[in-house]
């Protein structure tokens, strides 16, 4: 069964990418990526980086798009650190599928600046318990499935 994605008549990222409803909270765009400050500011400066092309999940990105998102994520971490002297770390996360809380069905990388005393607790991941085989079997199957 494929990863379950959110429903919606229009993809909000694609609407921004097409300039049909330009966002004043867009930080910048390149040929491959767009960066926006999002309304849900878990910490001040929380932003997302997403590809211009509609791509639902990480696993469907091309090498070129993946590299562009990585470069932009890194650049935004540097920009956040330069912009806010109290930034002491980052949470970088990206959800695939509604089971992972992906609200918009267009892959997007969250970059969250973290501060001592920041109001957002450390997020815990990996609580889900899909049927995972014992490690040795899991590793053998992963190695066989490597693209």
């Amino acid at each position, binding site marked *: 069964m494929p*990863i*379950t994605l*959110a*429903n919606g008549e229009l993809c*909000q990222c694609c609407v921004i990418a097409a300039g049909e*409803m*330009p966002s*004043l*909270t*867009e*930080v*910048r765009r390149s040929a491959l990526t767009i960066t*926006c400050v*999002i*309304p*849900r*500011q878990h910490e001040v*400066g929380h*932003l997302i980086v997403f590809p211009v092309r509609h791509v639902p999940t990480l*696993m469907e990105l091309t090498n070129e798009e993946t*590299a562009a998102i*990585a470069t932009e*994520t*890194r*650049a*935004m*971490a540097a920009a*956040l*650190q330069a*912009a*806010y002297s109290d930034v*002491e*770390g980052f*949470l*970088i996360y*990206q959800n*695939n*599928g*509604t*089971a*992972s809380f992906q*609200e*918009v069905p267009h892959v997007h990388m969250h970059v969250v600046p*973290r*501060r001592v005393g*920041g109001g957002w607790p*450390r*997020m815990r*991941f*990996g*609580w*889900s*318990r*899909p049927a*995972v085989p014992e490690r040795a079997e899991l*590793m053998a199957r*992963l*190695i066989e*499935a*490597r693209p």
Partner: protein
Amino acid sequence: MTNVADCAVCALIRDGAALGRDELWRTDVAISYVCAFDGDSVDQIAVAPLRHAASPLELSDAEFAAVLIAVRDAGIALTRVLDPDGVTLHAHVGAVEQQAAAHLEVLLGAKAFGVEFGELPREWRQEPWVLTDAVVAGWDETFEQRVEIVAKLRGSIAALG
């Protein structure tokens, strides 16, 4: 730059296994491995750069791109093997984020519906215009505050060149 001598990931890179981490494969730039970090977690995949670096900011653009490409490939393998309902990527950078090792690790966890933490309803519909100017106030910050954040970031981007 953090200390290589005490780094569990550098030990894994050197020995192939260390502190609950078991190597799957490696490229010229990154290593992928299976790990679990606490009693509530099932095994996850992690990807780390071969060169010791605690943060993406200590890597070059090309290195971090190679790490993220390795993460994508690990995600493809994970979905082929476990057929999960979702996949979560996360990287905790800095003591403030309780970074587990003094070495950048990008983690991938398979997710299944039916747990209380971190999921939306299966039939979730995206919120209308959540990213756009039509939303004038967000959760914590007003629209005007977000515009100020954008201006501040653009200033720092320009200063960084």
